[in-house]
Each structure stands twice: as C-alpha cells, then as structure tokens.
C-alpha cells in the first residue's frame, strides 16, 4: 500500500467515524551506520524505515495514533485509537488542522553530493581516520563509539483541508572518543564532525583534533576548590543552552514550568546577549521551511540585547496568548505529538576568539564539557550542578587539565553574568549553537 492510497482510505474511514479535520504525517528514512575498532569494521547497519502519524479532530479534541505498518489492519488501529484518545483528552486549548500559508521559502536543505557518497567510501575514510588516530600519538590506546552515520529523511504532510507539503533532508556525521593512557592513568576526548562537503573531509586533521582533545586531559593539576571566573568553551556552552532551551517555549511557560513565563518585554540577560532562531541555515539539524503544523517558518530574534522579545509558539500556544504563531510547532517524529521546539537556536557570536578569552584571564577555569545534563539540572529553577572536565588558566595561559570537577550555578543568573561572548559559534550535531562564554564566575569543586 503506498502512502497516498493509505491516506485516501484513512481519511474516508475517519470521516465515516466522525472525525472532522484530519492529517497524515509521513516520514521515510534511509540510514547507514558504521563503526570502526582497531582497523576493523565493528558495526555495519543499513536501514529503511517508514512511519505515519494520524491526527484528527473528534468531539473538539485532537486524537493521535501512529503506525509503522502500512496495511489495512493499521487503518483500523489508527482510527480506533485516535478516536479513543480524543475521547479521554481534556485539553482546554484545542489543536486545529491548518489549511497552510500562501508562500513557503524556496530553499533546499538536501545535498545530492552527500547522498552520492558510497558506503564503501565512508568506510574507507573511517579506516584512514582510524590509522591517523593511532599514528598521531603513542599514548592512544583505543577508541570508543567510533561511528559514522548518514541519514536521508523524507517527510510529507497531507491534510483534509487540502494542504500537501514535502521535504527532503540528509546529513552525515561522524564521532570518535579517543582513549589515551599515560602512567596508568586513562583519559578520553570526544570529537564530532558534521560533514557538509565530502570533498573537504580530512582524516589527518580530524585525527589530530580528536587526539589533541584526549591528550589535553592527561596529567591533571591539583587545584583548589573555589569560586573561579569560568570560560564555557563553545561545546560546553552549547550543551548547557540546549538543556534549558525548553524554557523559551510558550508551551512550557503555559504549563507553569518556565521562569520566562510573563517575562516577554523584560530584561532576562545582559546587554551582550542576543538569542536568535534561524530556520534557513544550510547544513544545520533544525532547518525547515514549514513547521509541524504546516506553518511557513521565519527567522526570529528571541532575545535582543538582553530583552526577551518573544517565546517560541505553535498555533495552539499562540492562540492562548493572543499572539501570532512563530512557526515552532515540532514533532520528534511520527511517534510524537505536536509540541514546541526551536529550529536552529543560538547565541549570536561576539568579537573575541576563544584564544583571546583565555589570554584575558588572570586566573580561572575553562570548562570543555559537561556531564549529567539530563539529571543534574533543575530545568524550572535553572539551578545546575554538573560534572565537568576542563583546564586551569593562570596569567592568560592554559596551565593544564584539572581533575574531574563539579560546577554549580543557575542558568538564569548566568545569562546576566556573561563578561564576554566569544566569536566561535558552533552547532555540532545539534540544532542549538553557542560561542564560548566568559562568565563572571562559578563555584567549582574538584574530585
């Protein structure tokens, strides 16, 4: 059964059962994953997955159900379950099916060049990278999670109001954890690259970056527990922002779970902080021309010189707040319901490079990565207490790595205590980006 036949029969049966407006969301993904361990292919996976999500208005509520099996039995499953789901729902604010906008940005996020890279070429590159990693430093003893993944996702949305939208995106990303050992002490470093141009991949350069990162944590210095000025390196800053990104959602605010509730128009950050959401960036994970409700997307300034100008909305949250949707309806996949999430959300870069930030520091700590982000934060209060790795800085120079540390602070206070915003904006394999940030200070405890 192809998806259009499936849709027609589904909408017809749905309408017979009493659904008013209906939507079918379709997703097909082709995936290739390989992992390398000591020169050998350790994992080889290919996949082709199709799934559809049905939602429809029944008795003024939006019922949902999804399936990965496109057959007759699933049509019945979708209708029966969506109907029963709608019957138990008690939402005050009702979701609607949208007829669509007149214009959508004409831009493609799909790369034919990346699609044409063969699995063999990918594996050969990974094997070369593997060799370069071991050649780069004799202290390298192993790698972990050394994987490459390429994904091509096709999406389509059809509704009973006549909207039909399609999208095709692909990406290729590889990562490695390099494990190094010296004097019986083991340390590791993570390196991730999102490939936008296969012609520019460079195994040697990539291996050196990965190995340098791992080696940089060997021979930690003994440092005192205290309140230090802290540079959150761009990758650490990004992961912290990512953790608190839901606070910028109007849905979270309307549920009473965001401190930014009723803060639109107020200062929430220092003058040097600008937060932007841009759905049209090339080679970013969150790019889209339409959102999960079929609304045309737009670039949006969320925080301007420290002032919160808007929260992120879908049509339901916008209606409740009496504003226009910002085009941030989102769905993790056909397995999810419509909620609110950013497209490509980032802190606008400043002028100083990472090296200049370090040079400007008399004494302080560089935090390079954060762990425990899913458990060590209170997303509502903004409090965090996280394990971290990093370096000790004295007289404008990195003196060496620190022992494993915990840093503790509060995200909302931190937004007001950024002394410098770096120029090195990065996204990594995420739709959230940040440059390095020099913070006034954080309480640091070393193991």
């Amino acid at each position: 059964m192809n998806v259009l036949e499936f849709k027609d029969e589904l909408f017809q049966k749905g309408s017979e059962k009493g659904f008013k407006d209906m939507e079918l969301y379709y997703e097909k993904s082709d995936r290739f994953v390989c992992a390398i361990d000591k020169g050998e292919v350790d994992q080889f996976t290919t996949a082709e997955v199709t799934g559809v999500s049905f939602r429809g208005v029944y008795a003024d509520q939006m019922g949902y159900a999804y399936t990965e099996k496109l057959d007759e039995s699933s049509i019945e499953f979708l209708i029966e379950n969506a109907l029963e789901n709608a019957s138990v729902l008690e939402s005050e604010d009702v979701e609607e099916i949208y007829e669509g906008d007149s214009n959508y940005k004409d831009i493609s996020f799909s790369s034919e060049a990346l699609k044409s890279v063969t699995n063999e070429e990918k594996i050969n590159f990974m094997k070369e990278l593997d060799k370069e990693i071991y050649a780069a430093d004799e202290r390298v003893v192993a790698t972990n999670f050394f994987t490459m993944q390429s994904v091509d996702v096709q999406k389509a949305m059809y509704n009973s109001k006549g909207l039909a939208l399609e999208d095709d995106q692909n990406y290729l990303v590889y990562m490695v954890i390099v494990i190094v050992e010296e004097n019986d002490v083991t340390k590791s470093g993570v390196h991730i690259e999102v490939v936008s141009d296969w012609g520019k991949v460079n195994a040697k350069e990539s291996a050196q970056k990965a190995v340098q990162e791992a080696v940089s944590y060997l021979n930690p210095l003994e440092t005192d527990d205290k309140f230090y000025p802290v540079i959150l390196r761009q990758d650490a800053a990004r992961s912290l922002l990512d953790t608190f990104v839901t606070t910028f959602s109007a849905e979270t605010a309307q549920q009473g779970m965001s401190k930014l509730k009723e803060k639109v128009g107020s200062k929430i950050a220092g003058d040097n902080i600008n937060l932007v959401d841009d759905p049209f960036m090339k080679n970013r994970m969150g790019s889209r021309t339409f959102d999960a409700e079929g609304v045309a997307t737009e670039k949006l300034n969320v925080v301007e010189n420290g002032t919160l100008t808007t929260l992120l909305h879908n049509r339901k949250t916008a209606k409740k707040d009496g504003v226009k949707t910002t085009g941030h309806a989102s769905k993790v996949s056909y397995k999810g319901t419509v909620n609110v999430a950013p497209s490509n959300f980032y802190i606008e870069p400043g002028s100083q490079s990472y090296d200049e930030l370090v040079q400007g520091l008399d004494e302080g700590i560089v935090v390079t990565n954060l762990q425990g982000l899913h458990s060590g934060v209170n997303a509502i209060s903004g409090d965090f207490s996280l394990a971290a790795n990093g370096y000790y800085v004295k007289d404008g120079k990195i003196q060496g790595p620190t022992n494993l540390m915990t840093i503790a602070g509060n995200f909302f206070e931190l937004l007001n205590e950024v002394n410098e915003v770096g120029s090195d904006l990065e996204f990594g394999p995420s739709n959230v980006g940040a440059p390095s940030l020099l913070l006034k200070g954080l309480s640091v405890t070393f193991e």
Partner: protein
Amino acid sequence: MLNHALVQDVIHESLTTGGDFAEVFVEDTFKDNLLLQGGRIDKSLSGRDFGVGIRVYNGFHSAYTYTTDFSREGLLKSARQAAQAINGNGKVNVQPFQHEQAPVIHEINQLPQSVEKARKVNVMKNAADIANNYHNSISQVRVNLLDEEQNVLIANSDGKFVEDKRVHSRMSIAAIASNEHDMETGFYGPGAVQGFEFFENLDLNHYAKEAARIAVTNLGADPCPSGKFPVIIDNEFGGVIFHEACGHGLEATSVAKGKSAFANKVGEQVAPDIVTYIDDGTIPNEWGSINVDDEGNKPQKNVLIENGILKGYLVDQLNGRIMDTEPTGSGRRESYRYAPTSRMTNTYIAPGESTPEEIIANTEHGIYARYMGGGSVNPATGDYNFAINEAYLVKNGKIDKPVRGATLIGNGPKTLQTVDMVGNNLGHGAGMCGSLSGSIPVNVGQPTLRVSEITVGGRKEDA
C-alpha cells in the same frame, strides 16, 4: 507474524556471501502513552511499531539491517544488504526450525490493549489527586502512564524459532512544589512486567505521596555543601550508581574488547568482601525481567561478584564467540532497530548484615542520599556523575536537615572498593537504561549502603 518459509528464505538470502550465522527478529508492538498535567489529560498517544531486523555473522564480524517493509521483496532486499557487508567462506547448514513459544515466567493478567483508556485515566487521576492534596505548596503534578505489548519472533540459522509476548507497564509521577522564590521537583516511577493489574494494585498512596513529599522537602532545603564525605545511599533506585559504574563494565560489550576495568579479572578481588553483585532476569514480573532474551536464550541468575570476588560477566552470543564463553541470557535490544548486545536485567547488590539505622548511627558527618536521580558514566575511565533527588546531612549519627542540588562524582571501580557497610533491606527500583542496543527497561537495586568517601558537588559556596 511472518511465515516459516519466508523467514527461511530471508535467512538463506542473508548467508549467500559466506556468513556463518543469521538471525531474523520480527517485532509488532502496541503502545499507549498518556499524560496528565494541571489536572487534565493533556496527551494520549497510541502507536504500533513494526519492523524486521536481520543479523549476519562471519566469525567475529557482523552486519545488521532493519526495515519496516514486510513485503517479500523488501525483506529479501534487506537480507542482501546485510550479506553485502560480509565476505566469508562459511558453509552453514541452515537447520529446520524448532517452533517454540517462550515459557512464561512472568504471568500477565490484563493485556494493556484490552483495557479501555478511560480506566487508565482513572488511575492517573487518583495518583494526581493524592500528590496534589499532600501539601499546599504543590503547584503542579504530572502523571505519565506508559504501557506496551511487544510481540516478537526470533529465528536463526541454528533452527531457533521462538515467539514471545512482553508486556510492560509504568507510571511516573512528578510533583512540583513552589513558593515565591523557588520551584522544586519530586519524582517516583514504578514499573513492572505486568498488564493493567499493575496499575490496579499499585500503592498510589505511597508512590504519589513520596513524589510530593520529595518536592516539598527540597523546597525547604538549603543548598548542599560541596566536598568529600562519607555517603549513605538508600536502597531501591540507589543502586543506579553501581549499575552505571560497575554493571556496564561487566557487560561483554566492553569486556570482550578489553575496554572494561573488570576485563581479565575473573577470580580476583574487585570489591570488599561484603559486596555481592547479581543480575537476575528471572525475578517474577520485575521491570527488568524477561521470558526469553532477544537472541532467543533463557534468562538466568548471574552472580557477577561474590563476596568481593569477580565471578563472571553478562554475555551475548557474538561477544560469547569472541570471549569463548557461553551466553548468559543477556542479549537485549530496545527494538528491531538495534542489534542485540549484552545488557543488564534486574541487577542488585545482595543484602548484608547491617540495619539501615546502624549505618546512619555509625556515621559522624556525611551525606544521606535517600533518593538518587539519574547520571552517567564515562565507560573508558569509569568516571561517573549522579544527581541526588533527596539528600540530607548526617551529623553525629543522626539524619539532620535536607539539602538540595547535590551531585556525586567519582570513579566506579574505586567507589566499589570503598563500600564499607551494606544493609539488610534489599529493594529494587525501575529505570530505563540507554546503551548500544537502545533504551531498555532494567531494575537497579541494593540495600542501604555506605561508601567511605565520595566527592559531592553542591551550590553552597562556603563548603
């Protein structure tokens, strides 16, 4: 789910390039996910996951493909893709299937799909009412009900053809307490290998109240001091530290490659002699229990560490080949999207001699972690970090005031060496464990125990 002849053909197709073993995993899963917040049912989602995973071995190499295309052509194409990654000279005699229904170790009374969603909603509302009424500072309650029925077929070139039905039910209750300045959360998430009877018999008065009580306690708590302290970790979900810091290191996935601190140490003392560590997938109806693993092998009680001595590992078939060891019924996967590997089921530290009261009375100055939160571990170094969801200071052998925002950091194998008291009150707690083969239900467990020193990170600046 798929007929014998087609499965046979898929297995043959996948072995055309000289693979020496092939396996087909078929899954048809039905799920419900309901969310109540602000007193209303806000989300109710049903889904059907359906797909087929094909795995081929050639010696120590393997390839995996998966697809939702269940047509004959789709499955044979998927089998060919797996075969293309294999270059072997294996000659296998594919054995005729021995059809088998996995023996039911864990009885299910009411299948989730047979129960009206309105009845599920009633249980959720009861839980929310209890939490809401606990204290006037409770400002928000979220109750999430999840159930699923996973039907699987596991067939392989050795003639295995096993079918099984796995049923999971879980309710998580999150309460938020707030005042003018702060919002704090409390959480409890019990689950079991049971049908709707699990929700009907669940002691909501206990679980919903505990979630609310934790939130209220944290609201009034001072920031936790930081520094190095003896830490008393309570039973049930407290076992998460040893799950992350030791359990993963005992999985063949890391042992076979020599990447674990426990590799090549069978017979050696790896923990104080008061520590015995067990993984047991056969405990009736526990959240991490299984009738059969995802490679079609029977679960068993695996003693991993006995009185401090390392006894063995958790082994799946592929790593069993590499290690020249029999599989231990530990091959697990989230779904058809993952090749199985060695994973935990219900893992726990066996009860010791001390009473929880004795452990507290013997601690002059330390931290008491009543409920642990989540955390993570760096598998290469064994370094871990965990949040404590409810913590207290211990002073002069007595539990003193609550403290909030505490994190524990340390090194797994070292922490295991410094366990100095083990209680007699074993309890299990439900969790989801994420690793190479996806996110799977596991229990962590332990009695109340004490570690002589762990680094505690907190927000209080004058530690």
